């Protein structure tokens, strides 16, 4: 359950950023989570409530923007979408590729009050 560590990382960022602008709470938070980032959204949602308790995020409305996985083939340069980190190139079948999208794990924005 590393999702708990992830949520605690989000809480730290929210606490720090809210303090920087001298506000007290977060009304809305937008997260960007890549589909290849290794985070189970069900697990994240499951731990969220207890993890944000007594923090600036306690009453925040959370939006998760999922980012699909994308790679570029190292052998034929084809860009392709992937569901699994081990999907091979649909054009030449190579397993050599660079992931160019889908590993994101970011706090995109905070609406503070």
């Amino acid at each position, binding site marked *: *359950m590393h999702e708990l*560590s992830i949520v605690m990382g989000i809480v730290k960022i929210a606490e720090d950023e809210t303090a920087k602008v001298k506000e007290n709470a977060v009304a809305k938070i937008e997260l960007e989570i890549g589909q290849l980032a290794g985070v189970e959204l069900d697990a994240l949602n499951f731990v969220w409530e207890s993890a944000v308790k007594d923090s600036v995020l306690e009453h925040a409305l959370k939006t998760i923007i999922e980012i699909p996985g994308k790679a570029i083939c190292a052998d034929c340069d084809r860009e392709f979408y992937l569901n699994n980190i081990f999907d091979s190139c649909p054009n030449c079948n190579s397993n050599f590729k660079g992931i160019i999208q889908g590993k994101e794990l970011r706090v995109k924005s905070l609406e503070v009050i």
Partner: protein
Amino acid sequence: MCGTCGCGSDTNGPTILKPGEHNHSHDVHHHNHDGHTHSHEHHTHEDHTHAHNHSHNHKHKVLEIEQDILQNNQVLAARNRGYFEAKNIFALNLVSSPGSGKTSILERTLSDLKNEIPFYVIEGDQQTLNDANRIDVLNIPVIQINTGKGCHLESDIVYEAVKKLEIKNNSILMIENVGNLVCPSMFDLGESKRVVIISTTEGDDKPIKYPDMFHTSDICIINKIDLLPYLNTDIEKLKGYALQVNPKLQFFEVSATTGEGMEAWYNWLKENI
């Protein structure tokens, strides 16, 4: 609640111990991660109401911060990596399912090479000093990290353990992560190389069932090859799956029990120091 350990209270937090130390030595209880909010005094009911009344006079401000959630771990991992490079310490992060043979591989490796190479070990387990004690009897400096409910090591606690170990230059640091093939994959510890261990009893398709760990590793040790005559395991198929996930993976096939195949692994270690 503590983000590193996932503990409900500090008594469940990660601890670092040397064999022989007391289990409850609070001075070494790790609490460097300033992120977690044990500061309930800031959240009295009065303050709360006050904040809410005020909020209606405020304009809502949107902060577009685009900040990486694992940034804290990555910054501290980079600090570890810089330390290792400066002192020419070859640091390995050993990851596997519980029971694949991480500690057994360490025991044999350290016994066979300790006269040639200075070794240091950090053991990560949720509970007990058992693994550290197995290393300690070999007279190798070792620190045990107990993660409590936490299921993986993070770079901040490894930093604390490294400080405590006082590692000499030109040595090898073995970091045995918590037995778990999922969670540790996301947490860079600052290691020079990541080594995933899979044993022959775990099934050929493990690499595509748990792809992240194989994707982020540099080396794959296939352990318990002494058991192959009794199993239907197809090692070539296992390697094929692992290479599909990570075409750059380098393999060693070993038995920690019989010592078979260990020589190639030793040679690789010696080349890297």
